[in-house]
């Protein structure tokens, strides 16, 4: 029993940490040898993972900044702490990426996407991005069937071995940034409990310059301030027969200015956003002979209040609020049938409601149900996986027309071969069909929404190869993937009525041919020195194939760069080191038509940081890091006229017990 508990604990935490890919296999492999798992899993073709130590090196302001160092990603950042940040993976829109935190789905039916600028990174123990097979253990059924999945494991909501743990992070940075996180957790044989909280603020008033014709336009970002906070508590109980129960409550709030695009000659900006959120998560899991299972439930309340006092209407501006609520219930299971054949699956139901505060608004409600069944079959060196997901969406609207109900079947197949020897290597090919529902805003927003919108469909093919040459003094890993994706019924906004009133239409078709490469090298230099280097490169030829008669036919899709990459290099002597980090992007177009007037310049941004770790008695660890970001003070933007900050500084202090 003890042995099994350990295995389940280990497999759970390993998977949650993101090493796991095919969860069933992980269970099996853990029984064989934990080292073997780690060795194999680092060769993963589909998933990319960063753990706490690696994340600390980057000192990211939020989860968006961590995900940027993965390949296959296009980050869109509107600038500023807490500002909107989204990612698109392999040329699919941002709404094709699912998010799971500690095994619970995070979603927003109103916008259909998660603002990564408001998902903070201090509590993250591991984060992974997976395409193809989804990375995680007994995930909600919905997590398996999306285009890609970001899975985050936090310090706050896990069983750990250490009896008492503390995490403290304090940051002081440019543009008035002050930021404090505190988390405390105790663990006993049958129970764990944690409390945590964070407060951050920033004025965000950074100077910028941008090219205005042949002149340099200089300004300071205004109305870019932020105050936000969160707090919560988590409790977990372990029972006989490997049963576990977890309950977590978290609340957060934010009050921020929305600076908007830089408008030449008009520097006014008065829009503000306040948000308030409450989340309750609970799950119950267990292992019984060859069956492992999990039941989960989530309630989420989200209030968003938007004001624009300078809007020129008769009531002296806009003041609107949006109340989103979601209820989720689900269960997932895995069962080993034969030693080389596993079944897994689950069901999930998600009920979303949205209330607009404005008169004559829609009151959309949606019941989205998921069912998933899959199996993996392993032979020596070969593994194959098949999944089928069925999804049903039922829509209601008390005030006006409703969107039609939808029923979809989504297949996934993959095949993989691996060999271990002087050169460990692995090859994998997979196909997935997925879709994303139009968001409530896209369907029902006053004057803009279109209830006739169909879901946006995506097909992904991918084939890749990874290798790990075994060397004594240095370690190296290479992953290469090629992919061909197609998005149909793409939802695009186009102006209707006049240029200020846009509406949503299923008019887009996008084909993407891409390639990504990841290289990781580690080398010990003498007894005290250690060098780590990682490089990622992504090529995405993502073209608009909506209409052969359009001038933008076969042009590169707006805001998808042809080339992106990043290089990280760290050099460490014992516990002190330096880290260089670069982010590269080729030019992009702000609109579909690939003409000079639409070009947004490419950029190369360089960060450097110095850090030292001090180990104190009783597993007390102190870490101090000084970072200079954008050291060459480049002016750049992800989105045209949403300028990013120039050179800026950040001092971080991390303190941890265990």
């Amino acid at each position: 029993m003890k042995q099994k508990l350990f295995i389940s604990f280990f497999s759970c935490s390993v998977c949650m940490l993101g090493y796991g890919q095919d969860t069933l296999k992980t269970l099996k492999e853990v029984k064989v040898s934990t080292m073997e798992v780690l060795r194999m899993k680092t060769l993963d073709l589909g998933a990319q993972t960063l753990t706490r130590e690696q994340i600390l090196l980057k000192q990211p302001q939020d989860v968006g900044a961590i995900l940027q160092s993965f390949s296959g990603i296009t980050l869109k950042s509107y600038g500023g702490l807490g500002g909107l940040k989204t990612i698109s993976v392999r040329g699919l829109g941002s709404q094709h990426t699912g998010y799971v935190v500690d095994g619970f789905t995070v979603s927003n039916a109103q916008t259909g996407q998660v603002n990564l600028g408001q998902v903070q990174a201090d509590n993250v123990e591991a984060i992974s991005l997976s395409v193809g097979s989804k990375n995680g253990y007994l995930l909600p059924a919905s997590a398996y069937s999306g285009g890609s999945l970001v899975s985050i494991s936090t310090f706050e909501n896990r069983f750990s071995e250490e009896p008492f743990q503390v995490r403290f992070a304090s940051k002081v940075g440019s543009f008035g940034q002050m930021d404090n996180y505190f988390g405390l957790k105790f663990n006993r044989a049958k129970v764990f409990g944690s409390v945590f909280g964070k407060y951050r603020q920033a004025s965000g008033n950074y100077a910028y310059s941008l090219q205005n014709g042949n002149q340099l336009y200089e300004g300071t970002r205004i109305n870019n301030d932020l105050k936000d906070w969160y707090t919560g508590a988590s409790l977990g109980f372990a029972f006989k027969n490997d049963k576990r129960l977890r309950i977590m409550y978290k609340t957060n709030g934010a009050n921020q200015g929305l600076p908007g695009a830089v408008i030449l000659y008009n520097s006014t900006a008065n829009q503000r956003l306040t948000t308030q959120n409450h989340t309750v998560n609970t799950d119950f899991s267990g292992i019984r002979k060859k069956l492992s299972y999990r039941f989960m439930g989530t309630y989420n309340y989200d209030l968003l209040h938007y004001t624009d006092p300078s809007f020129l209407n008769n009531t002296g501006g806009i003041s609107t609020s949006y109340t989103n609520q979601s209820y989720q219930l689900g269960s997932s299971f895995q069962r080993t049938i034969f030693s080389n054949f596993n079944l897994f699956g689950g069901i999930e139901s998600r009920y979303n409601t949205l209330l607009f505060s404005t008169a004559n608004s829609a009151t959309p409600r949606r019941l989205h149900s998921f069912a998933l069944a899959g199996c993996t079959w392993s032979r020596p060196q070969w593994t194959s996986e098949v999944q089928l997901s069925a999804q049903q969406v039922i829509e209601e609207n008390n005030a006006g027309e409703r969107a039609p109900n939808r029923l979809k079947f989504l297949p996934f197949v993959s095949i993989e071969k691996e060999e271990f020897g002087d050169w460990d290597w692995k090859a994998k090919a997979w196909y997935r069909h997925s879709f994303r529902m139009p968001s409530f805003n896209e369907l029902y927003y006053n004057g803009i929404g279109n209830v006739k919108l169909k879901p946006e469909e995506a097909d992904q093919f991918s084939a890749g190869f990874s290798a790990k040459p075994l060397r004594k003094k240095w370690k190296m890993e290479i992953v290469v993937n090629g992919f061909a994706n197609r998005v149909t019924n793409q939802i695009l906004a186009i102006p209707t009525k006049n240029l200020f009133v846009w509406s949503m239409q299923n008019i887009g078709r996008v084909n993407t041919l891409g390639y990504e490469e990841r290289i990781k090298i580690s080398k010990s230099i003498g007894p005290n020195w250690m060098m780590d280097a990682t490089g990622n490169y992504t090529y995405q030829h993502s073209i608009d194939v909506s209409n052969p008669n359009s001038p933008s036919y076969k042009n590169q899709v707006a805001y998808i760069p042809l080339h992106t990459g990043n290089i990280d290099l760290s050099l460490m002597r014992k516990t002190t080191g330096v880290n260089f980090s670069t982010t590269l992007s080729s030019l992009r177009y702000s609109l579909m038509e690939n003409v000079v007037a639409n070009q947004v310049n490419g950029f190369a941004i360089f960060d450097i940081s110095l850090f030292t770790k001090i180990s104190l008695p009783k597993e007390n660890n102190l870490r101090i890091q000084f970072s200079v970001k954008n050291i060459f003070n480049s002016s750049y933007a992800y989105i045209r006229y949403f300028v990013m900050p120039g050179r800026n500084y950040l001092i971080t202090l991390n303190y941890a017990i265990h």
Partner: protein
Amino acid sequence: MRSIKFLILLLVVVACKKKTKPPAPVTDTNLKNGMIVLCEGLFQQNNAALSWVDFSTGSSSNTFFTDKASRLLGDTGNDMKVYGGKIYIIVNVSSTIEVMEKATGNSIKQISMMNGSVAKQPRFITFHGSNAFITCYDGYVDVLDTASLTITQRIQVGANPEGLTISNSKLYVANSGGLNAPNVDSTVSVINLQNLQEVTKITVGKNPGDIETDSQGDVYVIARGNYSNIPSRMVKINAQTDQVVTTFPFDAGGIEPMGDNFLISYYNNSTSVSNIALFDAVAETMTNASFIGNAQFTTLYGVQYRPSNQKIYCFDAMNYTNTGYVRIFSSSGTYESSYHVGLNPKKIIFYE
């Protein structure tokens, strides 16, 4: 050693990154045989532009303003007119008026249209005597002295005024109230041009937009309705009595005078059909309800008549996010040629 090499590599990359831009061609020669096209651009993209089309070579360049002024025009170019040898460009979201010399296209002045910290958001311009009148979305008509190029007065009108026209020594201003949708305005403000005071408001129908004066001094305004069950209609105002005389029973989006006639343009958003009708403004009857039909356009965005060669210049916005075209027709409505210009073409100034 490796890190040093790496640093050197970084520096090389940075050094190579900066592109030097070629200096702008500065020409003070008088412009001739061509046209300047104001291209509205798209909201929050700062890509309003002027296209220069050279009729002798057929070439067009979308960087005319930047070539002349060494800077960008700004966000959302909404109106452009010539008066007293100067070009006035109304840049809505940037909240500026750009004044240029007509003969050369050289920049004379940028007038900032701010009211304290609030952008006035100017929309359209018209002229009378030594004054220019500019509708501002904050509910005023600004009076600009065309000699000193300064704002001398603000006249309060209705909400979110759009078009404006002059007849019988009075200024007629279409109050759209568009930012109060669905509770839009329905009135036209009448301003006495002697004392610059609002005299009355005439109720014409929901969401007034374009407004023009015919050759006999009658005022016609488009009440754009609510884009669903209330259609967009042309309404005639008698400028002697300031009363609504007629509401015409056909779809109308914009009015362009052509001698004694009107070219009435209409783009149906739900069917994506473009149409230009020919209306006799003297007899007040429809001459040809489908004078220039849908086959000639992707998205009709406006029309302008050039009296000197009696040709009709139509704006095709394509899908609004791709660069547009100016399509030229004879006075009998026969298609002749097209010029490729910038994003969302809106107004033309012609050079003989």
